């Protein structure tokens, strides 16, 4: 009498679904041939890590892969490596879930130029996230207002001077010169302007 069972849209799926309930209530004592064959088939088709990867439907034009030899796969293969991580590192981020990934490790070898390029041109991506993480590990901070990365340079002064250290700030000019420039004397650091990463 249930309306669902009257609805033709649920046929014939509902019948098959009911069959599985029967099996749940009374599982077969020993595995029948049909079940064994289905299980084998499931094993053969077992989803792998590529199947489980995050879906990407739209590709940012700049992030399309460069033309490569036809003998190379189109898919980027991020190979799993379980090499131990050096745990004697300073930054807490170096012990997070990304530290052991191949991308996280590769980023640690990129120079600043590359990191800034990824950050500004791969908006909204995992790669941008990892570049931001790596920049943070290296001491850079992101200003939410002008969208620039800043770096605080602390220079130890020789003993006997009035101050023990001299602080100067640099920022990366992504809009014009694509260079790190010194901040002018008028620069004031306001913590609330900076993203807490």
């Amino acid at each position: 009498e249930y309306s669902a069972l009257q609805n033709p849209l649920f046929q014939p799926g509902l019948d098959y679904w009911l069959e599985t309930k029967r099996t749940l209530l009374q599982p077969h004592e020993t595995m029948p041939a049909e079940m064994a064959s289905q299980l084998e088939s499931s094993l053969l088709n077992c989803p792998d890590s590529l199947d489980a990867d995050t879906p990407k439907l739209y590709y940012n034009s700049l992030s399309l892969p460069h033309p490569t030899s036809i003998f190379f796969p189109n898919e980027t293969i991020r190979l799993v490596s379980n090499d131990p991580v050096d745990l004697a590192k300073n930054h807490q981020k170096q012990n997070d879930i990304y530290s052991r990934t191949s991308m996280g490790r590769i980023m640690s070898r990129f120079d600043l130029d590359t990191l800034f390029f990824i950050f500004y041109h791969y908006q909204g991506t995992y790669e941008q996230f990892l570049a931001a993480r790596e920049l943070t590990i290296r001491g850079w901070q992101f200003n939410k207002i002008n969208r620039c990365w800043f770096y605080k340079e602390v220079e130890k002064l020789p003993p006997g001077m009035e101050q023990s250290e001299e602080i100067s700030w640099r920022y990366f000019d992504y809009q014009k010169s694509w260079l790190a420039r010194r901040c002018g004397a008028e620069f004031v650091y306001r913590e609330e302007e900076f993203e807490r990463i």
Partner: protein
Amino acid sequence: TNQEKMFLVFTEWVKLLQRVPENDIKVTVFIRQMMDKGVINSTDNMIQFTKAAIELSVGSFKESDPTSEVFIATDAFSKLIVKLLVLQDFTALSRSEYLRLMISVITMVFSEDQGMADNSFNERPYFRLISSLLCQWEDVSGHNFIKIQDQQFRNELIEFTPEFYNIIASFLHAFQPIAYPGFSFAWITLISHRMFLPKMLSLPGKVGWSKLILLFTDLLKFMAQYTKKNDVPDAVSVVYKGALRVFLAVANDAPEFLVENHYELLNNLPHVYMQLRNVILSAIPKRMVLPNPYDPQLSIGDVESCQHVPNVFYDPVQDLKNLKKPVDNYLRIPSASLLRVISTGIFKADQQKDSGIGYDSVSVDTKLINAIVLHVGIEAALEKDKTTATAIFNTKSSYYALLASMLSEGTTEVRFHVVQAIVNQLRYPNAHTLWFNYVLKNLFLSEEWGPSFAEIQEIIIRTLLERVVTNKPHCWGIIVTFTELLKSSECSIMTLPFVKDVPEVEHIIKHL
């Protein structure tokens, strides 16, 4: 036809998502038009559209060149589901009902696909749909849905999130291997998915734990059902390997889940999976440092953490059935008549096949025995907090007496399962481990057994031994207890008949 129109709309959606970023205004407009033009404005239309979308997704997978992008339609469909949950105003129908409806329709198509005799069923597009749904939900829900500008919507979505995961969990429960063997490997991959399992483990208030236990139980039941002593199908061996890796990962990331749920997990774990049992029982709360169990100076009573009562997520009292009253009454005032009720009440109506080590069937309700033993331990720990330690570290206490009496009155089979249940509580240093260590030592050395003495001692030694001869891990409480018995001057294990008479056993005991 209506169905053809649905196919067209969905195809347009798939194309759109490949041409613009997903947060482009055109995407929102497309969905708005779907609603305005009546594509999904009624339940029947919703059902028909969902059916069209899943059929196209699966069909497109099956027809695609395997080296190309085979999941484009599937990924677009999961994105649509997320968008529909996030963008719509839910008045007539709740988000939960809406999601359940869509997944129910998917279930019908899935059931039909796998039920058809032509063997063209492939689990991968269905796996991908749920996998992508989980990934895309994670993406939109980041930092408490901070990307959603409307505060009210944000609050609704935050509130809905545990429901989202529990609905997925409910459907995974329906797709379990015993019901859909053709989906088994995809299923195991889904319950351990990086966007599902850690989330379910860490939902505030442990609200994901019950469903997770249900899913792990489904897995263990499947393994139990098809693990026969002399014949384990290769595919089931592979299932076991995967299950072991998943449990090891859980023990690493969230040991407290195994610690607090050991009772339910062990109720469904086949006896032959000894190492997996040890993995579950060896789980230690994070940051706890274990005293060396092999330290000859170690005295278990002096270990500070043995004063702490472990949390038990599911209260076994719920499984006592009609023995709850007799057990609780006995703990208050022991009596022979109550004991008789309990001793007879633990038997099943019929024998049941079981692939145990050394036995093929059980006539006792092992789950009930496990419940009784753990319940007594929990009550004993509570009693100690209310009164004093001497109330429970006392062979005259009702707590000890109940377990001892079940052994003395019981058949060999009863004794075996009671001892197994006791030894299951010898885990990391905690109040239960401490009390059951006391119980087991006294049971072993008691002079009250009479002719049953040898059998009970043998069962105790066998139970401890089988858990230490396996490859690691070994439970701290078992090593400590076994070491104490081996060193005991009151009874030299080496002189016991079942050790002396079996050279292999004598050899192992000597070695230990």
